């Protein structure tokens, strides 16, 4: 009960912070639109490749962009934590009875709210563009759920590393280093059967691909629920590990002060 309450307080704090930066909000909302339209136009004709079983590239791409947006947003979550560390705000919380988990969960939930809004925009835009999601509302809900799992995982990792590195430059470097490779080592942009074989093998172990695969099958005409459930399961386990890591990282921080 205390944990839920503390998490709520922290989430509201971060949402309020965001609300006070209207420009940032605007950019955040426009960003995924650009991804969708840009990549949609760039790769429009890849559906003509033999073996690409999709009638519309936007419909194929949209679940990928939803997942990618969740990851790209959440992966920067730790930057604000470093700011809090430098300003003594975190230290102040740590000498109060606030639950440590809430300090991490509040940040992740704030990203969750942002990502949910972005995802709704992406799906709406894809629908306007003529794409259809035969999986229906249920399918889209599953897509949102797996991207939330992936986003939370990256949010937890980012905050954990923020507590260990405590330096913006180091965190930026690490984040830049992993984001794009993880995106391209997946079937986000191209059907799995068309990417090089070695990449397919790597993608099998890539959490980004788990989310994309699960989200895409859930929104398709004939969802493979077994596949979606197994990938969601992998993501849930990974999330638990990363949350434990982030909460424990407070101890590493506290040893160093």
């Amino acid at each position, binding site marked *: 009960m205390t944990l839920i309450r503390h998490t709520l307080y922290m989430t509201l704090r971060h949402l*309020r912070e965001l609300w006070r930066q209207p420009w940032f909000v605007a950019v955040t909302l426009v960003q995924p639109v650009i991804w969708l339209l840009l990549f949609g136009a760039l790769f429009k004709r890849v559906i003509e490749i033999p073996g690409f079983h999709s009638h519309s590239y936007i419909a194929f791409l949209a679940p990928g962009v939803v997942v990618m947006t969740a990851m790209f947003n959440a992966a920067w979550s730790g930057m604000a934590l470093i700011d809090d560390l430098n300003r*003594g705000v975190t230290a102040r919380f740590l000498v109060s009875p606030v639950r440590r988990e809430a300090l991490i969960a509040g940040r992740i939930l704030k990203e969750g709210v942002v990502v949910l809004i972005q995802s709704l925009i992406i799906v709406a835009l894809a629908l306007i563009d003529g794409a259809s999601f035969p999986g229906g509302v249920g399918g889209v809900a599953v897509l949102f759920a797996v991207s939330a799992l992936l986003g939370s995982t990256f949010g937890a990792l980012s905050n954990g590393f923020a507590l260990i590195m405590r330096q913006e430059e180091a965190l930026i470097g690490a984040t830049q280093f992993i984001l794009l490779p993880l995106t391209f080592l997946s079937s986000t942009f191209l059907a799995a059967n068309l990417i090089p074989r070695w990449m397919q093998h790597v993608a099998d172990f890539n959490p980004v691909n788990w989310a994309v695969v699960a989200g895409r099958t859930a929104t398709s005409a004939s969802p493979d629920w077994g596949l979606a459930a197994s990938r969601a399961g992998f993501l849930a386990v990974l999330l638990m590990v990363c949350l434990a890591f982030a909460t424990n990282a407070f101890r590493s921080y506290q040893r160093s002060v």
Partner: protein
Amino acid sequence: METAIQAESLVKTYPKGVTALDGLSFAVAPGSVFALLGPNGAGKSTAVKILTTLTTPDAGHATVAGIDVLAQPDAVRRTIGVVAQGSGVDIQATGRENLRLQGQIHGIRGRALEERAQELLERFGLADAADRVARGYSGGMQRRLDIAMALVHDPAVLFLDEPTTGLDPEVRADMWSEIGVLARERGKTVLLTTHYLEEADQLAERVAIVDRGQVVAEGTPDALKRELRGDAIHVDLERESNGRVTSALAALDAVRDVTVEGRVLRARADDGGRAVPLVLQALEAGGVAVSSVRVARPSLDDVYLKYTGRTFDAAEAESDHS
């Protein structure tokens, strides 16, 4: 509860082998103001971090309000208010929002929370700025908000780590009177760390002088000064002339504890007024040129010098260079 704060043989070494605390011990009586006085790097802040559960010692034992800080950190956190050395204000939130969040964390809600926030905003002169984002607050306002935030839940023990560092002298004087009021209020225990001698002298009922991670002397400011019998004599020399001064004054019975640091000569005398002419005579005979002389009642600076073998300024400069 016999003591509000008890630190026993605290040891803390940071990576790279920097020893911050080397067996630090002291005890604070409930309802009193206690100061840890020492130059930067003496270990005061580390002691506060351990007592407020922010970090843990390598060895030693500590209790706050009778609660073991290592065994029950959460119980300690509910009992204490902390104003850390840097600010802990969320500058993206308003003063009121900062206070509200602190209150909520301590389980205060609804109308009680709103009333408490308003009361503190008024008391610390922040009522007009209450709904402005704290980013625009002056240093003094942020500091007052910091203290207000530490008081939301009416803690029994309050920690103030260098509360006036970085403030203008005028703001500092205001802060002193505020801390004085706090201390007299409802038996709150206040632990204050400072590297300002006047601050400890003015505010604290008892002072522990901390040097290199240990308490080297402890007592009331008056008792500490009284231990230095007689007056302090400060002589400013025209130029540095270490060896000559010592030999010139060696035969003089009227003064003792002679130390020279740069161009300042310090000595102690039972009767400063009688000793000064003798000192000047001896120095002149020894060929040491004097630019000015002062006789003063002992200050905490003299106490510090006696127990650590160096002046406060020298210790500060040393820690700046290290």
